């Protein structure tokens, strides 16, 4: 009988336990302060908010859930009434007009603002938004050219991924890290690009494994933990000892592979250390790249309530805490935290620009 997680990783070459030769640490950050919390109480009780989720909807433990959290926060903080909220969810493989119908339905029932969660709604909004010029729409992860009543809520995933790349470099004993993407689409490539750049910045000699589970268009890559596990295991055996996944539900397989191979893992989107569905492997999760869809949704609703959409950032990036990293589980010590804050400050200050396209 196998005693769980002691299987040797044959591939991890001689450098084991020695860690990376690290680059110079960035200058310590000046005590950064978040821009949030400007004190004034905003009243949103008059709003009727509609949410159109992407596949998965509330409860997907991923970005839909995160959007839901933003909505819930608006309920408590802005006084949004529970019955003044409507949430609808997309079905897998549905046609374009189903998305349009969903948005239109919310609009005709008087919901305003309406948040579309996921770039899949971009094409539909292009059609629907002009039909309801008075309704304020927002789209998470996307933008609609030329529609003035659609607020894009986009994130600098590459910046957050940069920081977890740094974490990976500092945590890796073999100086060899891995990235597992769910589906090979531009959005996920942003994660890869930032991660690779961050890891390289912290440890120029670092080796990187990367793999996408399925090519663009085949979205089963977000739904196949078995494949995630295989790829994760492959990367561990190739020598990687910190794995970063941006693979939706398939990420669970990556965590399991990391656990079985005595490696570490980095979660994505929300703080996965605290997520019940991956509780089994929580001890290997050193951090998660946070994509604060909840912040964006909340800020958007708040801005609508204040009638001040211009105050919203163009991109939810490190500066506005739109992205970040999680520290739950206590795997990030004070030294590393200082380093991370240093990099963060440099990125915010524009001294480091993080590319959103993988280099190769």
């Amino acid at each position, binding site marked *: *009988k*196998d005693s*769980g997680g002691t*299987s*040797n990783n*044959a*591939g991890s070459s001689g450098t084991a336990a020695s860690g990376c030769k690290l680059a110079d640490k960035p200058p310590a950050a000046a005590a950064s302060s978040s821009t949030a919390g400007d004190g004034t109480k905003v009243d949103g009780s008059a709003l009727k908010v509609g949410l159109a989720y992407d596949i*998965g*909807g*509330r*409860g*997907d*433990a991923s970005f839909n859930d995160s959007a839901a959290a933003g909505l819930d926060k608006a309920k408590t903080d802005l006084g949004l009434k529970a019955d003044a909220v409507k949430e609808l969810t997309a079905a*897998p493989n549905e046609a374009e007009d189903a998305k349009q119908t969903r948005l239109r339905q919310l609009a005709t029932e008087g919901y305003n603002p309406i948040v579309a969660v996921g770039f899949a709604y971009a094409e539909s909004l292009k059609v629907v938004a002009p039909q309801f010029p008075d309704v304020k729409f927002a789209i998470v992860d996307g933008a609609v050219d030329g529609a003035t009543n659609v607020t894009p809520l986009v994130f600098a995933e590459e910046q957050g991924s940069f920081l977890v790349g740094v974490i990976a470099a500092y945590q890796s004993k073999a100086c060899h890290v891995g990235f597992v993407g769910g589906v*090979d689409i531009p959005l996920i490539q942003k994660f890869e690009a930032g991660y690779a750049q961050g890891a390289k910045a912290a440890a120029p000699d670092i080796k990187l494994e990367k*793999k*996408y*589970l*399925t*090519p*663009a268009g*085949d979205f*089963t890559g977000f*739904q*196949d*933990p*078995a*494949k*995630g*596990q*295989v*790829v*994760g*295991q*492959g990367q561990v*055996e*190739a020598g990687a000892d910190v794995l970063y996944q941006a693979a939706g*539900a398939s990420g*669970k*397989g*990556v965590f*399991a*592979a990391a656990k*079985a191979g005595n490696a570490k893992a980095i979660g994505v989107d929300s703080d996965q250390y605290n997520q*019940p*569905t*991956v*509780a*089994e492997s929580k001890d290997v999760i050193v951090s998660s790249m946070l994509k604060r869809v909840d912040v964006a949704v909340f800020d958007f609703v708040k801005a609508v309530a204040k009638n001040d959409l211009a105050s919203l950032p163009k991109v939810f990036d490190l500066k506005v805490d739109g992205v970040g990293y999680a520290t739950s589980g206590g795997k990030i010590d004070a030294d590393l935290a200082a380093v991370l804050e240093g990099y963060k400050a440099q990125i915010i200050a524009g001294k480091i620009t993080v590319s959103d396209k993988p280099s190769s």
Partner: protein
Amino acid sequence: MTALAEAPLTVVPPQRKRKIPGWALGMIGVAGAIALLSTTSYLTGVPQLTSTGTIQTAVRLALPILLAGLGGLWAERAGVVNIGLEGMMIMGTWGAAWAGYQWGPWAALIAAAVFGALGGLLHAIATVTFGVNHIVSGVAINLLGAGLTKYLSTLLFFPISHNPRESPAVPKFDTYSAGGLSDWLGSLEADQRVGISDVAGILRGLVTGVSPLTMLAVVFVVGSYLVLWRTRFGLRLRSCGENPTAAESLGVNVYLYKYAAVVMSGALAGVGGAALVLNPGNPGYLEGQTNGRGFIGLAAMIFGNWRPGGLLGGAALFGYADGLQLRSGGKTFLALIYGAVLLLAVLVVWQLVRRRWFAAATGIVAAGLLYGVYYSVDEVPSELTAYAPHLVTLVVLAVASQRLRMPAADGVVYRRG
């Protein structure tokens, strides 16, 4: 009637003497495959082809396919085409998660079998009792299986997992390794000696981190062979797939055996679904988790010529190709192309010996083309390697289809009387 016995009255195809028994042929095939892989691995410098991890992965990926394929085998040996395996597998994943969450992995296994069997029962009612076209019924069952599980998980899993498309985590089986043997093989593999290391890697992959489910699957394969080919039950079941009218005329209750076979088929497919849930990496049920594996199982069964041993080979090939592309991507895929060139070369020589000029020429052209690809491309685009298993299946079927022999009454709607 002695005089008659001497004069052959009909144009009988000459009796081909099978000098070599099936199992030996299988062993030779396996040995050949290992030799081919280790040569390729040596010549291209890609050790992943035969590493422990690759083999372990192949086993894991092959498992659900193998079980689904076995399900297909049972049904088709009794003459019922089961394209609804995918739906039955989905029902299995759901059942496994539902019971496994509450009562542990063994309960999961049983529940998966029961749920799959229910799908099989439905297929049997439609095809055997009502004489519906088998493909048609299968398509409908796939729809139904997907719908039912979605509905049930919204109903039952959502309150616990807070996700309508997912179950709560399900406890898993422990895995087992052949301790000393595994370590010894590991040291052999690490030696990097041509051939020996390869064989050691492959063997080690087979004895390390084995789940009880894998052992069970092996038991099922051997058991299916024994039951179907060595017992009276199996003989009767197969006779329903070969000539149901004849079977009925000898007092075999064809409907009953068809029902038994199709229900068994569903149960096996269900267990295949359980393998997905209980495999490492899967917390539990997840919508869309089967991802077409039921269909692949069917392909593996056809590939295996409706025999358990062949099916094992087909599932292994699929698991291997998929594992390889997932673990190491385009580079190893190129190595495989190189391996295919080697294989073709061997085949060409064989055809030349047998004076089959046309076949040999075709082989040379194909080998040339493949070698051209190998030579000119650095890495195959990941979009294409992702479906390497599909491509391999297609190519292998194209090459081997004419040697395949399905049960004579497979897919034929049978009516009593």
